[in-house]
């Protein structure tokens, strides 16, 4: 059946709100038919903050600090990039010190608001949100996944971003979602000629290409990646170990970092050192902060020597 991610997600949120008094939903003046039922039943736990995404994030922080499990809901480019500073400071940084449970839901992945133009096309969110420590990014491919992630995100402490398509779709296929929460991806077709790792709507595209690929004698491994920056890397690596080549498909800008560029050039011979996936609160000199971050002078020397020894 064609339906939207937000409708199946919000139906589950309504059930969770009925079961638990600590779930609140904040919307930046953005609705859905399923929201009408929530705001009718929970006038005290549904708050329309107005067209004010920056304030939405800070309000979500305040609610979360008081022990509420918070869902922030708005159009995808606005709930990620309009308020990126608030997400960084009040959620990503603060949550490292004070426990919070906040799930941001952005509707309008990629080009799903097709005719609305570049302000509504959301193609940078995966890159910018993935850059933040302490924040898990999930890019869903169909509405059957949304209820699973509603429950998962409400149960999982921390800060999460759920990326939803705006349009109603059929499920990608009948592969089911077994193991999806645990591994962060699912296998849509277990071929071995090449791998296609796709996320969001591009998983629909990849699946739709299957007949044509088979007609060309190609049986691909199709992987639907959901846990975009927090996938079970060992499990994914094991899947990809049997295929000679992998194609990544995403309705978003590709990673333009120099690390990615060098990794491509170096062909598996790159050693990269950078700041770890956490903020540094230790007080000290720049050198001491480098040590805490894992890029201290002695650490760099050790890594070089290890690398050199491994190559020798």
């Amino acid at each position: 059946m064609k339906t939207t991610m937000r409708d199946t997600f919000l139906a589950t949120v309504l059930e969770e709100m009925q079961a638990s008094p600590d779930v609140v939903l904040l919307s930046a003046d953005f609705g859905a038919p399923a929201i009408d039922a929530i705001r009718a039943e929970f006038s005290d736990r549904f708050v329309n903050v107005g067209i004010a995404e920056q304030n939405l994030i800070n309000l979500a922080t305040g609610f979360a600090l008081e022990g509420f499990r918070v869902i922030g809901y708005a159009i995808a480019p606005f709930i990620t990039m309009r308020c990126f500073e608030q997400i960084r400071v009040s959620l990503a940084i603060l949550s490292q010190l004070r426990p919070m449970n906040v799930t941001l839901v952005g509707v309008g992945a990629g080009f799903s608001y097709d005719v609305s133009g570049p302000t509504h096309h959301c193609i940078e969110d995966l890159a910018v949100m993935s850059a933040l420590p302490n924040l898990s990014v999930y890019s869903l491919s169909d509405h059957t996944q949304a209820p699973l992630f509603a429950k998962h995100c409400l149960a999982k402490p921390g800060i999460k971003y759920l990326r939803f398509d705006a349009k109603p779709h059929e499920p990608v296929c009948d592969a089911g979602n077994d193991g999806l929460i645990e591994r962060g991806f699912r296998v849509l077709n277990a071929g071995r000629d090449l791998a296609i790792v796709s996320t969001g709507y591009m998983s629909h595209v990849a699946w739709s290409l299957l007949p044509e690929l088979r007609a060309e004698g190609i049986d691909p491994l199709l992987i639907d990646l959901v846990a975009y920056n927090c996938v079970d890397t060992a499990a994914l690596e094991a899947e990809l170990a049997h295929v000679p080549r992998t194609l990544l498909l995403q309705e978003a800008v590709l990673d333009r970092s120099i690390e990615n560029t060098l990794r491509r050039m170096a062909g598996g011979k790159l050693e990269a050192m950078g700041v770890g996936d956490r903020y540094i609160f230790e007080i000290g000199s720049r050198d001491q902060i480098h040590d805490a971050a894992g890029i201290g002078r002695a650490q760099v020397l050790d890594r070089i020597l290890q690398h050199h020894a491994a190559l020798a």
Partner: protein
Amino acid sequence: MNARAEFHDPATRAHLLADKARWVREQTLAIHRRAPETRVASSLSAVELLTVLYYSGIARITPDEPLHAERDRIIISKGHGSICMYPILADCGYFPMAALETVCKPGSFLGGIPDPIIPGYETINGSLGHGLGVGSGTALALRTKGKAQRTFVLLGDGELNEGAVWEALMFAAHHQLKNLIAMVDCNGRQMLGYTDSVVNLNPLDAKFAAFGWQTHTVEDGHDVAQLLAGFEALLASDSPKPKVLIANTLKGKGVASLENAPLAHVMGVGRAEIDAILGDGAAP
């Protein structure tokens, strides 16, 4: 007995609070002498405001258990200018006084800009403009839970340049967050000069009022009696509106080289001047 109890007698507390504020100012300067990288001018303007808030009983604090559910939430949104919080928190019992010797030293938990590693700090505010929104969230959350605790948020006047503050102002008024009390340290200067020459905020009281807030302006934000009266007037009110105490203060209060310097925000104070103010030139 915690550090505030002696300040509750109405007959003596204004005098005692003024003495305490003097001590806080001296300690703030002593910290700056040991850690010149701290921002001192904007810390000195809020000394009396924060002293009254913490010592007079206006705010309910729980130093033995900093995140106790019964505490009032205090958010120091002007993160840069709050080194004066260190002696206040230590004196109130949030952490040992000896920690004041370690500000900005390796391994210390007291940095140049406070963060919630420090007992008594609720949020992180090195980036300006977030505190009132977060405070609106805690205030609404507390009300939703039926809790009586209040949220106090200290803002700088320069910080009011940030648009997110005004989103929160509108929201708090719309939702009648009477348990939210903003305090504006109106010291008149920001990094590159006087606030009224950068983006003029005046008339600030009228702006808050027009946004639906109950206001009280303290003409001399260094007069503890005026501050006490202002807080008491606001907190005694039955109005459903959120409240704001606008305190007219002097940036760099107590340090002659800062008091009239347009760029005081980024200026330090030399050791000789602090020695002369504290009268303890031989101190380390």
